[in-house]
């Protein structure tokens, strides 16, 4: 079996001030292996965004442990530093995640420039063109444009290119298709499939409320409901043999 990259154990998280405190995650266990696509599925308020942000070290759990490649990310610096350098993020709204004053090429190149080990500028340029090509965009025509000149689908593909430019071991995509027109979502899914083919060891975590959009790409699905793991399993098995009434409602909601 492939290496476990990320492992979360017994994760609890609450938000809000004393008195109005609300627990959003209850003893959640989850692991993410190299090369797999894990979909984290649930309705609004299920805790899926909070869980995955905790896994990627963007938020801290109240209790429980997150290990990245065997290092507890809350202890010492090494685990969190490795995770930061080896992860990429794609969010829901591409226009608010791209700096409007930066050209596409500069936005995509930024993660490379932030690395401690600098690449020569020709190599940066080449890598930017390579990743833009991977998501179906032409660097020569789009690289010098600003986000305002892009369609929603193009902007989201730029965000995907930026997420993988520094060859991360794990990419988190949080509702990356929700703000995208239905007809264009297929292109975005194709872009995710392309980046997985280009690096078969990269793990992809896709957060979504919609089973329909992840069914082709996810190897495994984790269903969260009101902060608890409802069930998890390989995609085909979960879709065909779910024992959970909540999962069945999600399946029904994603059916034509």
């Amino acid at each position: 079996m492939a290496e476990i990259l990320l492992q979360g154990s017994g994760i609890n998280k609450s938000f809000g001030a004393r008195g109005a405190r609300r627990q959003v995650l209850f003893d959640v266990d989850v692991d993410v292996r190299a090369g797999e696509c894990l979909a984290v599925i649930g309705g609004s308020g299920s805790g899926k965004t909070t869980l995955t942000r905790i896994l990627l070290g963007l938020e801290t759990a109240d209790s429980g442990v997150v290990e990245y490649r065997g290092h507890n990310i809350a202890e010492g610096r090494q685990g969190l530093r490795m995770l930061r350098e080896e992860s990429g993020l794609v969010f829901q709204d591409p226009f608010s995640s791209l700096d409007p004053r930066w050209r596409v090429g500069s936005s995509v190149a930024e993660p490379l420039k932030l690395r401690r080990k600098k690449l020569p500028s020709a190599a940066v340029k080449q890598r930017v063109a390579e990743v833009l090509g991977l998501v179906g965009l032409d660097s020569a025509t789009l690289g010098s444009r600003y986000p305002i000149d892009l369609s929603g689908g193009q902007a989201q593909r730029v965000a995907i290119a930026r997420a993988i430019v520094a060859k991360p071991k794990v990419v988190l995509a949080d509702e990356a298709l929700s703000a995208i027109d239905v007809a264009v979502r297929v292109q975005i899914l194709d872009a995710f499939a392309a980046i997985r083919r280009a690096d078969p060891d990269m793990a992809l975590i896709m957060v979504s409320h919609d089973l329909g959009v992840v069914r082709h790409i996810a190897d495994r699905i984790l269903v969260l409901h009101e902060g608890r793991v409802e069930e998890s399993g390989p995609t085909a098995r979960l879709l065909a043999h779910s024992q959970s009434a909540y999962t069945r409602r999600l399946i029904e909601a994603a059916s034509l």
Partner: protein
Amino acid sequence: MSVEIRNLNITIGSKPIVHDIDMDIADGERVGLVGSSGSGKSMIAKALMGLLPANASADGSVRAGGAQLIGANDTDMADLRGRYMGMVFQNPAAALNPVTTVAQQVELPLRLHYDLSAPERQERVKTMLSKVGLPESALGKYPHELSGGQAQRVGIATALITSPRLIIADEPTTALDAITQRQIVDLLTSLVDDAGASMLFITHDFAVLARATTRCYVLEDGAMVESGATADLLDHPHTEQARKLVAAARELTLHRQEAEVHHG
């Protein structure tokens, strides 16, 4: 209320937005308008509501319940809209006034357009709230205390409180999660049918469209490219644009067989 649109052209500045639009909605019919972002769907809805932006100009004919809306003066239009039309918007959190309670929000159209006593208004608001499936305790809540689905229920209550004859729903489910989307579509269609009202339902999603409407129009780049029974269109789209939207909907939904569930 029936709607008849003929040769509608809308331009903003010198830019044509939609051209030569013909469209009909029969009394009591639920009709869909589907197309990609930027295809001009919302502009047609705005023309129908008399809410086109100030720099837009429209020509052609838009009749609702027999009244000509193109060139109608603002007072007549406001009266027609207030009494006979209800609107449900995409982002319920933004459509609700953040400083008014649910009760005040839902009551407002009655205060503006009907001569009813306060107790009569409150009674209607209570009844409406239960119709949209919200508990009475929601009356005193503010928008920030509601979930997205609850806020959209308030949006629907506000749209339907005046018993309008035409409901215009512009992407009412796009901002909601998949399970909540279903609930809201089913709620809206059953309330519209119970009231015998007509509905224009705007979306970019054929899967939602199939559930909400019986007939639909496909708009691309400002032109109507196809129309027909929604079920037929899903099975046999004729134009390339409609095929693309249907293919996307199919790609992104589970097939019945695939979703066949073994009940334990």
